[in-house]
């Protein structure tokens, strides 16, 4: 069995050497290196996933966990880690000219850091990976070459960096109180963090990591970045990066701050996210920003789901996150040629029937048409809310349900425009073959999930059972000492 640290190390290595093979005789090697490494990482992770039996920990550098950095590998970490190279591979940027190498290099860095976010079990290490992901995504956003991209990237950078400062204060606070950074050891110190200072630390960490997760008050960057960046980058950020950031917040919540107040905070922020995102999306008149706002709303649902206590919340959250990962990535890919004004899409279905069909499929899943996975994720979320049954939870339920109605209104506007008779000139934009292929693969994944919904749910359930088991986390990580004397 190969070591899981390779999933982080290899993409980093590839990213470092990628610019060296940008010209000359070895150009082909440069072209190949990214996809090959990502495929390799996918295989490694999949091998782990398929033979997975027990959660285990890896002590990096051979230093016993509370001292050194540890990776903690359970099903949840593996699932999200597996999603990273897979989705990155699907959204791999093409090489166009000199900047292609840099863009691929940044994409590899993003993939490595996101995998790290999934696996790492150390608070500060999470911060480092998070920052790496952030810097790589600034570069990717600005890499579009448009002036708007530079301003959007700068504004994104400002929000994100400010969030990081707040997050760093949170880390400082935690370290001040506990003197350790290892999540497992922090989990054993439950009551040391169960005071207002701890709650404040959680709030700060949530704000810090929430920027990428498009959490409510710190998501001002979303519409402009998705409007200005290339659609594949938007797909990576909205689909993949946001989920890993959410995962980090969830890990922190579960291990360090398992209090009702912390959950309540996430719930309220989630509700506000759903409401503000969906409402703003309703007013959008171009597809890219509409999808951006819609993804704020969807991530609000994810936050609401994760705020539910126990396994039920984890299952619902992971289901909602995975569903949004597939659907929103695919929708952004389709928004490549179709990202502009919605009015300009009149009759686009006549020139790209497959694209329009895929759009309808994803939209219907997003709205929760029953046999599609979107329905089941919504089912789990709302079921959990109904079960929890406080006034705030009912409010969340109302927000999710109302949000879906709003979503229906604006998505149907797009669909009816797509299928309307063409306006004449200018001709409706046509989908590119490569985008259709990518979106088609996502579509196949979605349909496969719809067919295999029950095994999938059982997997998620098993995942959640071990996910909420913080005692196992502590034991596994702190026992890793013996494994590497």
């Amino acid at each position: 069995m190969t070591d899981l640290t390779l999933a982080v190390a290899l993409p980093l290595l590839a990213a470092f050497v990628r610019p060296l093979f940008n010209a000359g005789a070895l150009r082909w090697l440069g072209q190949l290196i990214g996809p090959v490494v990502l495929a390799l990482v996918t295989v490694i992770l999949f091998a782990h996933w398929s033979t997975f039996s027990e959660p285990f920990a890896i002590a990096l550098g051979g230093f016993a966990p509370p001292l050194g950095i540890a990776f903690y590998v359970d099903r949840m970490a593996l699932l999200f880690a597996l999603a990273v190279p897979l989705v990155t591979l699907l959204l791999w940027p093409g090489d166009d000219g000199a900047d292609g190498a840099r863009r691929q290099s940044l994409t590899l860095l993003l993939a490595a850091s996101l995998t790290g976010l999934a696996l790492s079990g150390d608070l500060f290490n999470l911060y480092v990976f998070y920052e790496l992901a952030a810097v790589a995504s600034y570069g990717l956003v600005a890499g579009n070459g448009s002036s708007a991209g530079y301003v959007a990237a700068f504004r994104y950078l400002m929000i994100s960096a400010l969030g990081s400062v707040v997050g760093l204060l949170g880390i400082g606070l935690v370290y001040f109180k506990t003197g350790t950074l290892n999540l497992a050891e922090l989990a054993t110190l439950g009551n040391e963090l169960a005071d207002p200072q701890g709650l404040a630390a959680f709030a700060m960490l949530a704000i810090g990591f929430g920027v990428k997760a498009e959490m409510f008050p710190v998501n001002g960057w979303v519409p402009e970045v998705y409007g200005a960046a290339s659609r594949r980058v938007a797909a990576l950020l909205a689909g993949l990066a946001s989920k890993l950031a959410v995962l980090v917040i969830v890990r922190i919540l579960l291990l360090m701050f398992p209090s009702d107040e912390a959950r309540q905070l996430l719930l309220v922020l989630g509700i506000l996210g759903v409401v503000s995102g969906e409402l703003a999306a309703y007013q959008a008149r171009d597809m890219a920003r509409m999808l951006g706002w819609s993804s704020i709303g969807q991530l609000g649902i994810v936050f609401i789901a994760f705020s539910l206590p126990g396994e039920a919340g984890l299952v619902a959250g992971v289901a909602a996150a995975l569903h949004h990962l597939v659907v929103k990535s695919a929708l952004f890919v389709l928004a490549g040629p179709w990202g502009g004004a919605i009015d300009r899409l009149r009759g686009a279905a006549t020139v790209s029937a497959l694209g329009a069909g895929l759009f309808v499929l994803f939209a219907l899943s997003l709205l929760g048409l029953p046999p599609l996975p979107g329905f089941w994720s919504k089912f789990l979320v709302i079921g959990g809310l109904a079960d929890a049954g406080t006034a705030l939870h009912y409010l969340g339920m109302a927000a999710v349900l109302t949000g879906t109605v709003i979503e229906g209104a604006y998505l149907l506007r797009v669909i009816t425009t797509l299928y309307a008779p063409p306006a004449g000139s200018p001709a409706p934009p046509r989908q590119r073959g490569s985008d259709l292929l990518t979106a088609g693969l996502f579509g196949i994944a979605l349909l496969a999930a719809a067919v295999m919904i029950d095994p999938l749910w059982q997997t998620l359930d098993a995942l959640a059972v071990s996910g909420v088991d913080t005692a196992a986390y502590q034991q596994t990580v702190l026992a890793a000492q013996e494994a590497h004397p």
Partner: protein
Amino acid sequence: MTGSLDFLLLLSVVGVPLAALLAPSVVGRWLLVLLYVVQLVELALLGSGDGARSAVSFSLLGHSVGWQLDALGWFFAMITVAAAGFSAAYAAGEWGTLNARAGLSLRWLYVGLQVNVFAMLVLLAAGDMVALFIGWELTSWAGLLLMLLAGGEAIAAARRYIVYAIAGGMMVLGGLLMTLAAAGSLQFDAVAAAIPTVGTSALWAITLLFVLGFSVKMATMPFHLWQAPAYAFSPAPASAFLGAISARMGLFAIALVAIKLIGIVQLDRLYLYFDALNLRNLLAWVAVFTAILPTFVAMKQNDARLLLGWHGVGQGGYMLLGLVMADSLGSAGGLLHVFNHATYQAILLMAVFAVIHRTGTADLNRLGGLVARMPLSFLAMLIGIIGLAGLPPMNGFVSKWMIYRALILEGQPLLFVATVISTLGTVLSVYKLLHNTFLGQLRLEHETVKEAPWSMTIPMLVLCVVVFVTGVAPGLVLEYVAAAQQALGLAPVAFILGGIDSPAGTLDMIWVTAILLAGFGIGAVLFYLMGGRSRRVHQLDNYAGGHFLTADVRYQYSDNFYAGLMHRIRPWYRGSFAWAEEALVSTFGAIATAARGFFEQANPAHWVLVGTTLITTWVMWHALV
């Protein structure tokens, strides 16, 4: 040989690709009609008893999801498949060919029709609440498929529909999951067993969410605005199908959930105002207003399709009213009305679309005098409006009689008077429809209009026969209605072939018809005995006050119909609901603009500061309290 539910469902799934394959050719379309016949036969073989259980069942997320067709579902399913068959036949011949030439996608039309049938079967045969919701959502979206086909104004109507439909669906989902939280299971038995133990506030929430959600599809007030345009502007067969049965899925679901699972007793328990007004009374009043207001809105319409669409909304009120009476007579009347309404509504829409097919318009101010040009269509519409108005000897009379009777017996004089007012409106407005289309002055441009082709008239006429026969011998249908009542847990109605024979009242339509026909016979005999004088003149050969009238002079009283009555009731047409809807949408738009303003910050970091401060304040406040 008995049928199997799985085979039926399989047949209807296979029908979808078949429809895509066969729809473009005339022969193919007739084969598709045959497919509906096969489905109908299969359904008939299943029989109206309980026990047609599907072998297919899933365990999804810990809920077992299966399908079982009970007598109630079977009753609705028969109507559904038959309505689809008639609609398919209507479009199979010339209508389809000509409209395909004009740019309509027959492929999508037939696929849509078949998808609708499949979705409704999934809904009607639901064996538990998850299956019910799956069927419910599929039905909602399948309806959209048919509504979008015509383009133009249909698109706007369809968008409005889907917002209503999603809102309804989400309410149902909320109710469903609150039921799950309260009952711990979504199996019908378990839910029915757990409902009596649920607390009042939770029961209120569950019941309201379900009933409101389902009644969106029923288009009961205040959710009635979407239906008429959405159904009216669909292509002819789609309109006939949707108008005949689609909205009744809401009634089916209300019957299933509110009456079978939650139970009338529980509805009575939910008091709105101390112990004066309970939920059941409220539903009855909503139903009655749904019967009245849309009927009078229909009277004002100048588009024949919209007029019928609004009637469809109104008639739904009767059904719900009968159903919530929940006695044997009333609920039987409500269910029977589903069947009756489906038959004559299909006839009426088909007749209107036949007129559109020949003249190109449904504008009641641009038609008239077509009776001699399209006599068969006229006959069909005549029979249809007699049914819709609830006059003997057509079937509409029977069901309405049962509902009236139940209202009187249940001691609801106010509701009774209200329904009579509604019926008055119905009679007036359907006369407007018939008169403005077929009677009066023929327009010059319609002088050469011919009767609709046989492929369109035959389905209408067959349905006319059905309307008449089931009007004379309602017992044929009441047998299945009684079974459906039993499936709902209500007392079944005591019926005979000619009607009702129970202590609650007696009606024998065979006698009624005989007397009516005898009356007509005597009239005819008198007429012919007196010499039977009549003279055939050309339809444009008219004179008034001793002057011949040239054909280009309009002297027909068609625009501003019922001016006298309208003058009296005009102040009541305030469009309050449309106004409220508009106000809601624009309020919503304003809030949405505000939400968008949240993202329009000059300084990107502004909200980070505000958010951090507010959250930290919350934390500290939390620590202090």
